[in-house]
C-alpha cells in the first residue's frame, strides 16, 4: 500500500518535472525572437586566370548558419559557416579548401574596421603582438583563398553587434545539440544576388603628369627626363576591401607629395631645373605591371630615350630604418651608382640605411616582380624603392585585406618623400654629395605631413582593384585633378587589361540574417493546436449537447459525416 502511494507520488513529481521542462523550453523559445537583420558583406573575388576558374564561384547564399567547432566528418554542405578571423582555424579551412570538401557557404568576420584604440595600443606595444599575428593570418588566408577554386559563396563582413549576437546564439545551440540542420532551427543566412557576370573589357587607366625643365640659353639638346612612377591599383581577396594603404597607397601619396614639392620649385623660372620631370600613376600593378608596360609602349620613343632613369615607389609606408633599392642592372652601372650614391648620402644624414638588391631579368619569364623591370625590359634605367627586401610572388603584397591604414606609419612615408625629393633636388641642381637641405623642415618647401595624411586616409578608404574601377571613377578623376594641380600637362590613358584575366562582378551584397523556427517546432505547434481544437470541440459539445452526444459522435462516425454534409 505504502509502496504504491510512493510510486504514485513519484508519478506526480515526474509529471511536474515534465511541465516545468516544457515551460522552460517555451521560455527559451520566446527569448529567440528578434527581427531579421541586414549586414553589408563583401564577396571573395571571382576571376579566371588563363581559363582556370579561381576564387568564389557563387554569389547566392541560402543556408543555415553554423559555427566552429564542428564534429569531425560532419556534413557541412548545407551549412553556412561563420568564422571570425580572430579565432580562425586555418588548418581546418585549408583542409576544406584544398580537399575541395563542400560547404554551404563561408562568412568570414573581420575585426571592426578603424578601431582607433587598437591602433594606439599597437603603437605603444610595438608591432610584435597579437595584431601582427592577425596580419600574418590574414596574409595566409588571402593567399589561400585567391589561389583556390571555391565552389560556394564566400563573404567577408565586419564584426558588429548584430552578427556577434547571432554568432553567440549559433554557438550556444551548437553546443547544446548537434550541428544546425533544418530540424533545430537557428539562423538562416540569405544573400539574394544575381549570378555573377563577366566584366566586359576591364580597363587600366594610367595618369601621367609632366613638369618641363628650363633649357639653358643656346642649348639645343633635348633636356633629360627623370621619371617618378607608382602603381596605384590593388588586388585582394575581396575587391571591395582591397584599399592597399601600403601597397601601393604609400607610393601614390609619396609621388603626389614629390610632385607638389617640385611644382613649387618649377613654378619659378629661377629655380626651374635642367631636367624634365615625369610623374606616372600606373594601373595594373598586380598583373605584372601590365599598365606600366602599355604606358611605356604607347609613349613617344623620343621621350622614352630622354629618360635618364625612373624611380618607382612601391610599398614605402611601414619600414623602420631600412629601405631597399631594387635594380635589374648591375650596381656598377653609372646611373644606378649615381642614384644610389645620391640616396645613400641623404639617407646617412637622416640616419637611414639604404640597401641595394640586384635581380637580373629573365625575359622568358612572364612574371614581373618589380615595376622597374618593365622599364628595364625597354632599356630604360630604372629602380624600385621598397621596404620589401625580396621580390613578392605573383598576387602577393598587392594591397589586400590586411593592408589597411592602421598598419601604415605616416612618418615612414614622410621620410621616404624627404629622402627621394632631397636626393633628386641635389642631383637636379648639381649639389651632389653636398649637405644642402633644400626641403628643410619649417621652410616654405618642407614636406607637408597633413597633405600626406589626408591623401593616405582617402586612399585607405577607396578600394582600387583596377577591373572594378571605371574610366570615370571618382578616384581616378581625383588623382588626375591633383596631378594637374602640380604639373603642367596631364594625360590620362585608358588601356585594356591583357587577356589572361577575366573578372566577375558582384563585389558587395547585403546579407539577411533570419531567425527561423525549425520544422520540429512547427510540428509541435501543429500538435498543440490540434489538441486545443479537439479539446475545444469536446468542451463545446459537452456544454451544449451533453456528454452522450460527444460519445455518440465517436461511436457513429459515418452518420456524423452524412449530417455534416
Amino acid at each position, binding site marked *: 500500500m505504502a509502496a504504491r502511494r510512493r510510486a504514485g507520488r513519484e508519478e506526480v513529481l515526474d509529471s511536474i518535472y515534465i511541465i516545468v521542462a516544457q515551460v522552460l523550453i517555451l521560455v527559451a523559445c520566446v527569448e529567440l525572437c528578434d527581427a531579421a537583420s541586414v549586414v553589408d558583406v563583401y564577396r571573395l573575388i571571382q576571376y579566371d586566370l588563363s581559363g582556370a576558374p579561381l576564387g568564389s564561384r557563387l554569389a547566392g547564399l541560402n543556408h543555415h548558419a553554423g559555427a566552429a567547432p564542428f564534429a569531425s566528418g560532419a556534413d557541412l554542405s548545407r551549412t553556412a559557416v561563420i568564422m571570425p578571423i580572430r579565432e580562425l582555424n586555418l588548418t581546418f579551412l585549408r583542409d576544406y579548401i584544398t580537399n575541395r570538401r563542400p560547404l554551404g557557404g563561408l562568412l568570414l568576420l573581420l575585426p571592426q574596421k578603424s578601431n582607433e584604440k587598437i591602433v594606439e595600443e599597437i603603437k605603444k606595444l610595438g608591432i610584435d603582438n597579437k595584431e601582427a599575428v592577425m596580419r600574418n593570418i590574414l596574409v595566409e588566408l588571402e593567399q589561400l583563398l585567391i589561389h583556390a577554386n571555391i565552389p560556394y559563396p564566400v563573404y567577408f563582413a565586419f564584426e558588429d553587434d548584430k552578427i556577434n549576437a547571432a554568432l553567440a546564439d549559433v554557438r550556444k545551440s551548437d553546443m547544446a545539440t548537434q550541428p544546425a540542420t533544418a530540424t533545430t532551427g537557428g539562423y*538562416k543566412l540569405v544573400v539574394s544576388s544575381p549570378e555573377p557576370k563577366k566584366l566586359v573589357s576591364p580597363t587600366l587607366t594610367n595618369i601621367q603628369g609632366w613638369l618641363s625643365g628650363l633649357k639653358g640659353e643656346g642649348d639645343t639638346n633635348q633636356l633629360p627626363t627623370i621619371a617618378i612612377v607608382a602603381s596605384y591599383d590593388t588586388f585582394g581577396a575581396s575587391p571591395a576591401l582591397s584599399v592597399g594603404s601600403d601597397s601601393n597607397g604609400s607610393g601614390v601619396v609619396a609621388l603626389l607629395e614629390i610632385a607638389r614639392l617640385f611644382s613649387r620649385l618649377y613654378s619659378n623660372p629661377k629655380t626651374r631645373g635642367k631636367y624634365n620631370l615625369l610623374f606616372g600613376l600606373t594601373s595594373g600593378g598586380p598583373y605584372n605591371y601590365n599598365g606600366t608596360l602599355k604606358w611605356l609602349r604607347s609613349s613617344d620613343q623620343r621621350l622614352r630615350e630622354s629618360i635618364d632613369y625612373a624611380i618607382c615607389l612601391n610599398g614605402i609606408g611601414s619600414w623602420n630604418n631600412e629601405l631597399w633599392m631594387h635594380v635589374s642592372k648591375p650596381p656598377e652601372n653609372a646611373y644606378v651608382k649615381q642614384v644610389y650614391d645620391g640616396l645613400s648620402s641623404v639617407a646617412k644624414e637622416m640616419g637611414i640605411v639604404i640597401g641595394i638588391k640586384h635581380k637580373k631579368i629573365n625575359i622568358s619569364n612572364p612574371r614581373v616582380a618589380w615595376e622597374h623591370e618593365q622599364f628595364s625590359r625597354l632599356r630604360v634605367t630604372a629602380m624600385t624603392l621598397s621596404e620589401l627586401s625580396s621580390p613578392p610572388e605573383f598576387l602577393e603584397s598587392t594591397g589586400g585585406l590586411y593592408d589597411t591604414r592602421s598598419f601604415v606609419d605616416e612618418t615612414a612615408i614622410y621620410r621616404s618623400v624627404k629622402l627621394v625629393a632631397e636626393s633628386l633636388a641635389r642631383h637636379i641642381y648639381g649639389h651632389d654629395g653636398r649637405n644642402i637641405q633644400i626641403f628643410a623642415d619649417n621652410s616654405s618647401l618642407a614636406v607637408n605631413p597633413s597633405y600626406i595624411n589626408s591623401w593616405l586616409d582617402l586612399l585607405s578608404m577607396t578600394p582600387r582593384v583596377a577591373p572594378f574601377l571605371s574610366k570615370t571613377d571618382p578616384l581616378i578623376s581625383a588623382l588626375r585633378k591633383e596631378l594637374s594641380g602640380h604639373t603642367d600637362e596631364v594625360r590620362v590613358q585608358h588601356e585594356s587589361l591583357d587577356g589572361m584575366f577575366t573578372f566577375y562582378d558582384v563585389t558587395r551584397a547585403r546579407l539577411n540574417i533570419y531567425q*527561423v523556427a525549425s520544422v520540429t517546432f*512547427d510540428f509541435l505547434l501543429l500538435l498543440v493546436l490540434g489538441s486545443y481544437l479537439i479539446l475545444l470541440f469536446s468542451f463545446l459539445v459537452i456544454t*451544449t449537447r451533453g456528454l452522450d452526444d460527444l460519445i455518440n459522435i465517436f461511436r457513429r462516425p459515418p452518420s456524423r459525416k452524412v449530417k455534416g454534409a
Partner: protein
Amino acid sequence: MTVFHFFNCAILTFGPHAVYYSATPLSEYDTVGTSVKAAVVYLATALVKLVCLATFLKVPENDNFDPYQELLKAMIGFIDVAGLYFALTQLTHRNISQNHKFQAVGLGWAFADSVLHRLAPLWLGARGLEFTWEYILQGLEANANLVLNLSLAALGSLMWLRKNKPKTLVPIIYAFAGILATMPSITSYLSRGLGWNFPEVVGFELISSLVMAFFSWQLFSACQKPST
C-alpha cells in the same frame, strides 16, 4: 516550412470558428445563412466606422495616447453595437431560437472580423523566412475576439430580444454590455497608453474574454430560468 507555419497560424486564427460551428447545435440547425448575414452587416458596419474614423479623427503624428481622440474612437466603436443590434433584431432570420440566433450572429461577426483584420497580414507575413511569435499571438487574439463577440451578442440578445427578464439584472446586463463594447478601447489604451507589449496585451485579452464570457453565461442562464 514557412508555408507550414502559415498553415499553423491560419488554423489557430480561423479554426475555433469552424469548431464552434460544428460542435454546437448551430450546425444541426444549419444557421450558416444567419452567420453570413451577420458577416455582411459587419462589413457594412466596418465601412461606416472607417468613414467616421476618417472624418472625425486626426491623423496621429506620433504613437502617443491622446485621451480625447481615444474617447472619440471609443464612441465610434459603439457603431459596432449598433451594427450588432441591427443584425440581431432587424434582419429576418429563418425560424431559429434566440439561443442559436445570437450564437450564429456572434460567430459570423467574429469570423468576418478575423478575415478582415488578420488574413492579409497573415498571408503577407507568416510565410516570410523570419520567425516571429507575432502571428501566433494574433491567432490567440482572434480566439479572444471570438469569445468577446459571442458574449456581446449574448448580452445583446438579452437586452433587445428577451422581454421577460428579471428587473434586478437589467442594469448589470447593461453594465457588462458597456464593458464589452469598450473592450477594444481598453486594449488600445493598454498597448499605447501604458506601453504594454503585444504578448501582455494578448494575455490580458484572453483572460478578460474568459472572465466576461463566464459572467455573460451566468447572466444568460439567470435570465433563462424564469422563462423555463
